[in-house]
């Protein structure tokens, strides 16, 4: 699929600039005093995101990939505006989202919706499907005609039989629940969907149905997706561009063909080597040594250097900058300087 080519002067749908997000307990006054006196240690802080830049253009599907704990879900939540960054700013259609208020803020909130990993946990078990889907649009006054007809329309879009809308979530299978979640997100007419591991819990044959549904909806409703997943096969299938995260940073970003054909960052190369594919014939599984370090105390310099086979002295001290190494292909690795 070709990359959608927006006019040059059009601002991107979403732009994330130097966004960091930390998690940690706020010390109370007594603890703060004892920290100041050197009697206590400051509480541990998780650096979930570390100065991340990311641009999402209108109409594209951006795949966000990484291991558990790399911060991809945190980034997805910030993109969907259900989590605020600790520092940095998020621009929605060219305006800083923290400067929005009133109607503009509400519209921006509704325009970005999220579809979660566990379709059962995301649905209130005591509400029937009709109520679940119609609640948000009713509150925001989006339903002009009959409520039942409105719900039916969106359930049909998500491939869910409207005759069953009076039933409760537990009466459905995982695939049907996923469809209800999608219908609910669509019911407030968003422009942008953040799918956080939305197909990870589904069986292969159901996963194929839901992936096809995402692609159909994109064409019908002109949607933009941020597709967060650990499954590289799924990301390769659905995305136009891919961003690879490692321990709170985006290490590489490129069009999907490019990243799978010519991965640049050593982490991307190692990760892609591990994609299991259906290919007859035994293969040797060789893995990257070691595990993802703790985001409480990330290594200095390039976060990947303790596991990187090419790491040099410079990688241990200096944070690599994100550079354009080929058209639209960005990578943050010191090795690119030496090659040049």
């Amino acid at each position: 699929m070709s990359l959608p080519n927006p006019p040059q002067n059009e601002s991107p749908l979403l732009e994330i600039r130097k966004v960091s997000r930390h998690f940690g307990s706020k010390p109370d006054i007594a603890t703060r005093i004892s920290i100041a006196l050197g009697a206590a240690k400051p509480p541990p802080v998780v650096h979930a995101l570390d100065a991340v830049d990311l641009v999402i253009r209108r109409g594209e599907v951006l795949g966000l990939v990484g291991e558990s704990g790399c911060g991809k879900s945190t980034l997805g939540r910030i993109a969907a505006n259900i989590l605020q960054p600790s520092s940095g700013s998020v621009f929605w259609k060219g305006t800083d989202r923290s400067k929005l208020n009133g109607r503009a803020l509400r519209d921006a909130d509704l325009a970005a919706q999220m579809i979660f990993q566990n379709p059962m946990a995301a649905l209130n078990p005591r509400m029937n499907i009709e109520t679940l889907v119609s609640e948000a649009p009713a509150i925001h006054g989006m339903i002009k005609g009959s409520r039942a007809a409105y719900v039916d329309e969106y359930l049909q879009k998500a491939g869910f039989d409207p005759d069953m809308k009076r039933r409760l979530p537990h009466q459905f299978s995982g695939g049907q629940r996923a469809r209800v979640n999608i219908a609910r997100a669509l019911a407030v007419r968003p422009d942008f969907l953040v799918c956080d591991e939305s197909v990870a819990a589904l069986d292969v044959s159901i996963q194929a149905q839901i992936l096809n549904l995402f692609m159909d909806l994109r064409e019908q409703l002109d949607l933009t997706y941020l597709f967060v997943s650990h499954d590289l096969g799924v990301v390769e299938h659905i995305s136009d561009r891919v961003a690879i995260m490692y321990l709170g940073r985006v290490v590489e970003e490129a069009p999907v063909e490019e990243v799978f054909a010519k991965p640049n960052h050593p982490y991307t190369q190692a990760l892609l080597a591990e994609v299991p594919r259906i290919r007859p014939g035994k293969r040797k599984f060789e893995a990257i040594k070691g595990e993802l370090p703790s985001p409480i105390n990330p290594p200095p310099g390039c976060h990947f250097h303790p596991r990187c086979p090419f790491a040099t002295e410079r990688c241990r001290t200096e944070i690599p900058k994100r550079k354009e190494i080929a058209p639209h292909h960005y990578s943050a690795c010191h090795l690119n300087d030496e090659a040049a």
Partner: protein
Amino acid sequence: MKPLLDVRGLVTEFPIGGNQGLRAVDEVSFKLNRGEVLGLVGESGSGKSVTGFSIMGLVDKPGKVSSGQILFDGEDLATQSYEQMRSLRGRRIAMVFQDPMMTLNPVLRIGTQMTEAIHAHEKVSPSQARIRARDALGMVGIPSPEERLDAYPHEFSGGMRQRVAIAIALLHRPDLIIADEPTTALDVTIQAQIISEFQKLTEEQGTAVIWITHDLAIVSGLADRIAVMYGGRIVESGDITTVLEAPHHPYTRGLIRSVPSENSRGTRLAQIPGVTPSLARMPAEGCTFRTRCERATDACRVRPGQFGNELDYHRCFHPFEEKLA
């Protein structure tokens, strides 16, 4: 050569009142040689895990193995007493589960749990048991195994915990390991590490492995043979390359084609219509897949037998013969 494991017509039922029972495993037959890896593939509810539990003698009551034979090294496990099974489990057949946090006792040190498993089957001194536990940890690639023996399960990451579970399974050098989705909860890089440990095992120690999974891609690079399950039955079984290149059964074909691949970008994935019905709603007679099958005819109302020989077979009246494009 006599196979290590020879499962013949295994039926595992769960009673649902009256004289009726739900057949979670329905006449399943397969063979496994030493050092061989069998990929047992299927979606949720296909009966693949219950097959594993049946071999281990771990089917929860009121469910039971109601007919068939499980010949392990010539002995029928289905007729063994509880004590006999207990002396086999952990010693000659071991199982690795999906969630290592559930298999490890959270309040005991790893070393305690491992030496306990050794003492369950052998009389050895505590210090010898500890040395064996340490060596087993080292074998699955856990750094500084001596110190890690004193750690608790919560001090390990998910991947490391799964290694501990595998190390426990290896303590008695079993002939057969049943691995039930052992890498499903892990990241790709950690998954590759675990699979490479299993590959070493089968090559160096001749351990046979039944790898239960829904992931065809893993099986394609790891297994020698594959058995695809649907609705409690093996619908197709054979050599891994043959089955993946030219699957006969429409379900196998649909399953392979619904996995995203490098060639599927920008296209719609092939879909198997409908959803897997629950066991209670499976078609009672004939082929269980016929309600979702595009090739189904009236002939499918009769239960399909095994077409082929006892190793390589499929259960379909309208099989595909051509290779998968």
